[in-house]
Structure formats: structure tokens, C-alpha cells
């Protein structure tokens, strides 16, 4: 954390991310009106002291919906990346450790296959086919949001697996890994105890950027009605709601959720950028360059 203070970019990113996270966490505690309660007589009120962000077509408080929307939007963005990281890191590490084996080959071909599936199209198609309602898989009932997280998370894993694999492969060639193997330390202990901590920084950079993409994917799917389902607000579905005001001037309906997406995605991107600058050793030892 102290390293972060050296990068104003990362700090700004972190501040934005934390602010958004705080909003998401505190939404239920803050003295906000219910995000789903309609007040049909108070539709399309512009921002005022009573409704800071105005109200929407059904008289719902846009501030409350933006804050509550942070919960679904961020949770989905983070959820996607968590799934992708867990799968990608495990497979990437295992494949690197098994370099040269049939397992490595199979694992990396699997990665190739999943990497060749266009995320958004696939997500749209699958949600479209299985429907936006809850899907029953055996004893588990998956909400549409959970389906989305699983689906997009699975499609995020190949990228993470490839990065992990490449980094781990290089790391496993380091002498200290051999030194660990000498006293008979097991593969898992080496992979998770030595290799992973050393390659975590670039992975975190990647994860941070992916969260941003995840948020945009959520927004896109919700925008076409295949994401977060009403009445639960999400930034994407709020933008979808605001479509009907594009030409009529109730700017607050699209401004606030749009800004929320923008700020949180830029937050994660800045955080990723800042972390990259901090972690990238090439940034520290600069090669001589032309002065002219």
C-alpha cells in the first residue's frame, strides 16, 4: 500500500474505486428512499434538494438507484473477474508446472478454444437462449446475474490463464524454484507459495482492467435487457431506462448512471495503470535514450 503513494495515478484510481465500493457497501445504510419504490406522481423531477439526482419515469429516486446500482454493477464486475482469476490462475499455474506434458497441451488448447469465443456475443446468445429468469441447474437456482457472472467469468479465464502461464513458466525457470525443490517441497506449495506471489502484480494489473471491462459488459447486457433484471437497479439498466429521454432533455436519467460507469471503470483502469507503472521493472531502470 505504501508503494501506492508513489503513484498519484494509482492513488486517484484507488480513491475512485474505494469511493464506488463505499457507495455500494453503504447503500442500504444511507438514508435513501427505496430504489424500487415508484411514486407515480413524482415522475421526471429534475435534481433538487429533495431528490439530488432527480427522479425517473416512475418517480423513483435516481440517487438511490445509482447507489444501489453500484451494488449490482460492481458485484458483477468483480464477480466475473474473481471467477476468471480462480479458473485462469489455477489452470495457468498447473499448465506451467506440467510444461511439456500432455496435460499442458490439453489445458492450453482448452484455453485457446475459450479464448476464441467472442465474449459479448456468447453472453448475449446464452442469456437469450436460457432466458433471463432464474435457471434451475440441479438443486441450484441461478439468478440471471449469477448466470452472467459465471458465463462471462468463464470467458475471461483464458486471458488470465495465458498470462499466468507465461509468467509462471518464466518464474519456474528461476534458480530459487530449483532451490525450493531440492528439499522435496511439493509442487502446490511452490506454485502457490513462491511462484504466485511473484507473478501476482501483473495479474492484479490485469484483474483491475478486467473489472472495468466487466462493468461495461454488465452495462451493455443490461442495456439490451439481458442483464440485471428489474426492479433491481443497475447502471446499465438505468441507462436502458433513460433511452426514452435521449431527445427530451431529462439529462439526469442518463447522466448519473453514465457517470457512475465512467468513473468506476476509469478508477479501475487508473488503478491498473498505476500498479503497472509501480510493478514494471523496466520503468525503474531506464535505458539510455537519445537526447537530441
Amino acid at each position: 500500500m505504501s508503494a501506492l503513494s508513489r503513484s498519484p495515478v494509482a492513488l486517484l484510481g484507488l480513491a475512485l474505486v474505494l469511493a464506488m465500493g463505499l457507495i455500494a457497501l453503504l447503500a442500504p445504510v444511507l438514508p435513501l428512499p427505496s430504489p424500487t419504490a415508484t411514486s407515480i406522481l413524482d415522475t421526471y423531477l429534475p435534481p433538487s434538494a429533495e431528490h439530488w439526482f432527480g427522479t425517473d419515469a416512475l418517480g423513483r429516486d435516481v440517487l438511490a438507484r445509482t447507489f444501489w446500482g453500484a451494488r449490482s454493477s460492481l458485484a458483477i464486475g468483480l464477480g466475473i473477474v474473481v471467477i476468471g482469476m480462480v479458473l485462469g490462475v489455477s489452470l495457468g499455474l498447473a499448465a506451467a508446472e506440467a510444461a511439456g506434458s500432455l496435460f499442458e497441451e490439453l489445458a492450453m488448447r482448452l484455453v485457446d478454444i475459450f479464448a476464441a469465443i467472442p465474449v459479448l456475443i456468447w453472453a448475449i446468445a446464452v442469456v437469450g437462449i436460457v432466458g433471463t429468469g432464474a435457471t434451475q441447474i440441479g438443486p441450484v437456482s441461478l439468478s440471471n446475474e449469477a448466470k452472467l457472472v459465471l458465463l462471462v467469468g468463464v470467458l475471461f479465464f483464458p486471458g488470465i490463464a495465458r498470462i499466468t502461464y507465461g509468467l509462471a513458466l518464466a518464474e519456474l525457470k528461476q534458480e530459487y524454484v530449483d532451490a525450493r525443490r531440492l528439499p522435496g517441497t511439493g509442487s502446490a506449495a511452490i506454485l502457490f507459495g513462491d511462484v504466485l506471489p511473484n507473478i501476482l502484480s501483473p495479474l492484479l494489473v490485469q484483474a483491475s482492467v478486467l473489472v472495468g471491462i466487466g462493468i461495461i459488459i454488465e452495462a451493455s447486457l443490461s442495456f439490451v435487457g439481458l442483464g440485471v433484471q428489474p426492479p433491481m437497479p443497475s447502471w446499465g439498466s438505468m441507462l436502458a431506462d433513460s433511452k426514452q429521454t435521449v431527445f427530451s432533455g431529462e439529462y439526469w436519467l442518463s447522466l448519473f448512471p453514465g457517470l457512475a460507469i465512467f468513473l468506476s471503470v476509469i478508477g479501475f483502469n487508473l488503478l491498473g495503470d498505476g500498479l503497472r507503472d509501480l510493478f514494471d521493472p523496466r520503468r525503474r531502470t531506464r535505458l539510455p535514450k537519445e537526447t537530441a
Partner: protein
Amino acid sequence: MDALLQIEDLDVRFGTFHAVRGVSLHLARGEKLAIIGESGSGKSVTALSVMRLLDGAARTAGRILLQGEDVLSLSASALRQMRGRRVAMVFQDPMTSLNPVFPVGRQIGDVLAAHTDLSGAARRGRAIDLLAQVGIREAERCLTLYPHELSGGMRQRVMIALAIACDPALLIADEPTTALDVTVQEQITRLLVDLCRARGIGLLFISHNLDLVGEFADRIAVMHEGRIVEMGEAAQVMGAPRAEYTRKLLAAIPRIGLPGEGRIPDTPVVLETRAVSRAYPRARSAVARLWDRRQVQALRPSDLQVHAGQVLGIVGESGSGKSTLARLLIGLDLPTSGTVLLQGAPLKPRDRAGRRALSRRIQLVFQGSQASLNPRKTIRRALSEAMQALPRAERRSPGALMELVRLDPALLDRYPHQLSGGQRQRVGIARALATSPDILIADEPTSALDVSVQKEIIELLQALQRDLGMTLIVISHDLGLIGTICDRVLVMRAGAIVETGEARQVLTHPATDYTRALLASLPKGLAGRARFASPA
């Protein structure tokens, strides 16, 4: 004075780091000046400032006169005219210095196009000439090759061809042979010296190797911490050094002594290999191996014996299979055929118990670069992890291990990057000693270290071997090092053992041409000057 290059009071700072402090030197037309120094001494920065190749972050003061013109005040276009035309440079790593995506011919052609009016065909002809001059036999074919298709020595020859393409008056060579094998190192040095002599080019040669420059340099400047501590005729600097630092450097050079006047006692064999070989499949992926069954023979069937309590040196150039052999001996890798016997019993490194038992018998000391210690773990942690193979009762305190390698136990809670190279290597040795092994294998234990530190590490290893009565196997490309400390020597080439015997015997009366060539190409300091007296 007919000064080609005159540096006056050069001062270079990078932020708070004062890299070069008031360096003054001059170089006459056709003269060969060598700058010697360890890493961080400021020698490369000095060289780069002559070409004004330093990063924008560098703040430079002083004067650099090239043929009377102040380089530091040249305009951008004048600077471009100067570079490559009047002064050129050969860099350390020929692999990274050549543009990887264009064939050699195009790269030479572009340099010629930049500084001459030659037509395309004329440029091509000149490029073939140049390649022939730097000793490339199939010059015409070489034009179409990419850098990665050339060997290290060939690449450096191409780099030299690029540098001399437009007949510069001054050639700066920044550690031009450091990345090369000894035998190639000699050829490249000779090529540079001969070319400069033949064309009257002034040569500024940057190196860390005193013995190497002692063979050909007219004058030598010794740099230390940004200053020139001594400068003079080669014979004087090498023969009668005035500066304390120069003396220290000279003393640190490992020279083949004639170890052990008496006979080496016959002790029992503790470790041996029987027809051990190692081959790797050419195809990397498991699927490709289904049809591509070709193999790369990293180690041909080899027999070797290691005698208890003795020091065995394994010497060879890169790709000779010496590291493969080391990994087989310690069980990090399994042989394709043959067996490794530890006191007559085959090595069982696969299961955890076998691995643990083995680690109490044999240990490995790594190169000692940054990578030999996990950067995220403290020294204490690294040492205690190494003792995992031991029952709890037998584990030693990390502090005791530190004292064994003469390190301050206060360093235990530091991270590897907070240690110097020499300290890190001591930690590496301590880690290997943690399980009190009978046999210690040191794989290139000094190659990542500065000359002055190398000596300390070698002495430490020698002392430990003697005091603890260990068997020591030292693997190195450096014949000097092997010759200094080993009882027996094993010479490897292209995956095979070509010669083996008592050190004195092998180093004084080599039985094979290869060993002879290796010995011959060792830089010999002033003693080698005769070789460079006239063109080969």
C-alpha cells in the same frame, strides 16, 4: 597533440546518482585506449556520453571534443551526421543490439544509405565487402539472414561491420566480448584490434577484464566509483600499478596456478555416473512430439567419478552440457539412460522421502544472481525453508548458518534485493549448507559477480570445503577459476566429456586440441601481448 578524442572534466548525474565525476582523458588517432572498471564504475556512461546516447534524465557537464568539435553542443542533425560516420560503437550483447526483424543486408544497407550516396547495388557490394572484412565466410548468403539465425560470434562480427561501414575515426567498444564464449572472445578482440590497426581507427575499449585489455591496449584507464583512479601505459598499469584499487583488481584475477604439488590422495568414489545421458525432444509440445520424434542430445553417455573430499572442476563453454550434468547429479533432472550412483546406490530423487534424504547428502549452490533467492521472502525464511528436509531437532538456527558463511546475522530479516551480489551468494552457500551435505555442487558460483567479489567467494568455498571436509564440484566456463581451486578437472564440449584428469596434468599437458584451444584463448594480460603484436 593530435587528439582524436579529448574528454575534459566530464561529469554525469542521474538524479541524485553521480555516475561520472570529473573524468578527463584523451585518445590519439589510431590509439587503443581501454577503460577498466567493475559494474557501476561509470565506464559505460563515459563511453555513451561520447556518442551522446545517454537518457534524457542524464545531466552532463564538461567538454567532449571529437576532432576538435564539442560533441555536447552539436545540433541534432550534426549529431546524426557524426554518429556512425565519425564515431561508431559496438555494444555488449550482439543479440539485442541488432534489429531482429530485418536481414543483415538491409541493416548494413540502411547505414550506408544514411551516410553515403551509394546506389542500391553499390551498397550491396560494399556490404558484402564489409562482411568479408569482419571474417564472415559466406558474406553474400549472410546478407539475407536474420540476426537470430547467426551464432553469437557472427552477430558481433555483423555489429562490427555496421560500425566500420562508414570508416569512422573512432570506434567505441563497450564490453564487446563479455557475452561470448572464451574462444570466440579472443577472435572478436583480435578482429577489432586488427581492423583498427589496419584502418588507423582510434579504439576506446570498455571492459571489466584486465587480462583481456592487457594484451592489446596502448593505454589503460582504471575507473572506480565514477573516477579514473589510474591511467597509464598498459605495461605500467598492469606491471607496476600505482593505485591501491588497481592492485586489488589484479590480485583478484584467478590465474591458473599449479595446485597441490604433491599427489592427490586416492579417496573412495562417493558419486559416479554410469553411461548417463540426457536427451530432450526437439518438439516442445506433447502433441507435436507425436510426429516429431527428433531429440536434442544435451548430454552424451558419460562416466565420471567424484572422489570423497576432493574438488572436481567441470569446465566447458555454453551448451557443453555442464549444467545438465549438474542437474542430473543432484537429481533435479532424470537421465534418459544410465544411472547416477551415490555411494554405490542409485539416486532416488522422485518421491518426497527420497528427495529429502538426497538433499541431506548433496546440495547445490546457484549462480548467485537475483534469481537464486525468492525476492519476496526474507533471508531467514529462505534459510529455514532449506531445512525442511531435516527433522525439527536437527535444524540449525539461521544465525549459525550466517556465521558459517561469515555474514552478519543482522541481515537475516532483509530481502534479497537489499543485499549486495556477494552477500547474496554467501546466503546461497549458507542455504546449501543448511542440511550439512557431504557433497556440494557449485554451478557457476561466481559468474554473476564482480571480479573483486569473485575472489572472496572462491576463498570462502575453498575454506568451507577444507574445514567441513566436503566433496566439492565446481562448474564453470572460467578455466582460471577451475585451475585455481580444483584437484581434478573434467572438460566438456558439445554434450560430451572430452578430457578428464588431475588438474595439474590437464592444465599443463592437455591431451586434446580442444583443451589446448581453451587454454590458449584465455586472456593472459601482458604475457599475451606478443599475440597481438602483428595481424593474425
